[in-house]
């Protein structure tokens, strides 16, 4: 093995892969949320549809989207692999007859389970919108005034989907799961790349907590508003 391969298979290398892909996905969440919030404009979906056209046609964004798919896959595979290795290292699932949870957080202990739930949600979410938009011709085409091209009416699909109660429930619960995953993941990612110092650790922790609450809330209010008030 050359030096880089042995770095990637070392315990720290594997964790750094988790950390960097995790931070990348964390940043993606903001971009995704800012885009999604345009669904709340009272313009019959014009802003959102033009935005989604831009996101699917801009070459830079397209390149980043392939990086994103790679990031999700790497984070998932590496995470599951670490989970399996760690179960073995700890001495199996049934470790102590009397277990104590006094010194570890719920999120910290359950990152793998939370991650698996998020992955299942991602599959549902991609099938609901991404698949329908990219690989079917179910969406109607509209041309907005001042535009010289047709755009797909993704807004209409969103408003139909979010009228179903069970869809809204699944999306909201998934955001709670995401919140817990971020609650541990955000600060953890910084610790792994070595960024823990009394000078700024408090700041990272505070931003991490805010992030873990605000981002999932931002996502969750969209289906809820569509269900009750649109």
């Amino acid at each position, binding site marked *: 093995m050359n030096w880089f391969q042995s770095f990637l298979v070392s315990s720290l290398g594997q964790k750094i892969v988790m950390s960097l892909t995790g931070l990348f996905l964390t940043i993606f969440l903001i971009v995704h949320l800012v885009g999604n919030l345009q669904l709340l404009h009272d313009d019959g979906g014009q802003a959102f549809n033009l935005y989604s056209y831009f996101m699917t046609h801009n070459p830079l964004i397209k390149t980043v989207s392939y990086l994103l798919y790679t990031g999700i896959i790497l984070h998932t595979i590496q995470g599951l692999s670490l989970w399996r290795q760690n179960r073995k*290292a*700890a001495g199996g699932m049934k470790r*102590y007859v009397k277990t104590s949870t006094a010194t570890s957080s719920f999120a910290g202990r359950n990152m793998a389970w939370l991650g698996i739930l998020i992955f299942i949600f991602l599959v549902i979410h991609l099938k609901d919108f991404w698949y329908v938009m990219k690989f079917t011709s179910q969406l109607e085409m509209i041309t907005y005034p001042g535009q010289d091209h047709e755009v797909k009416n993704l807004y209409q699909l969103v408003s139909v989907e979010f009228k179903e109660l069970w869809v809204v429930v699944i999306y909201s619960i998934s955001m709670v799961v995401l919140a817990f995953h971020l609650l541990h993941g955000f600060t953890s990612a910084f*610790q792994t790349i070595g960024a823990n110092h009394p000078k700024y650790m408090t700041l990272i922790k505070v931003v991490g907590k805010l992030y873990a609450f605000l981002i999932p809330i931002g996502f969750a209010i969209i289906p809820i508003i569509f269900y009750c008030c649109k």
Partner: protein
Amino acid sequence: MKINLKVWRQKNTNTSGKIVNYVVNEVNPDMSFLEMIDVLNGQLVRKGEDPIAFDHDCREGICGMCSMVVDGRPHGPLHGTTTCQLYMRNYKDGDTIYVEPFRAHAFPIIKDLAVNRGAFDRIIAAGGFVSVSTGQAQDANAIPVEKAVADNAMDAAACIGCGACVAACPNGSAMLFTAAKVSHLNQLPQGKAEATRRALNMVKQMDAEGFGKCSNIGACEAECPKEISIENIARLNREYIKAVFTGE
């Protein structure tokens, strides 16, 4: 005081063990947890039974030999305390206490509560030292060390290598131990010469022993009898990244 104990009994590494119930009467509140087990062992020996095997040495909280997971917590429920410094006055008459060995794939059980922590010795042998030529001892003040650096190194050096971090970690990771040793030596001028090799080799040995991968849960820091901070783990991460990307 009367104490009900549920103790993990296991003949040797290759057999499976189980929890056995014992009652210890006349426990003095000023006894340490280990002294209470001594009393129980006395009872067992008088009855012709096999006494409980457990590790202990200095019994003053500095050697790192005593272990035991007490009610699911390495070294028991007190903060910054080894099992030998846990006194029975922290319990009430009639309490039931679970006593189990430190558990990790890399810490095989020798017998009952005694586990083999040789993996730690091999991590130390991989780089937890400073190579110096022997001879006349150098004047202590000849090498200046900045106060804050000396303090940080001293805090890390407080690690007694007991393995509570591994037993507490849901991943069975030895990162806090390895990080404390690397932090202690890599910050000091005497240790800097071998800093790169130390970070690489100690992590390599830690992985080879089958310890888990740190996921920053922080249970190690909370259970550490010497209160070693996980800031040291971040420092090891930095030292390791630096060693991988800039080392020769």
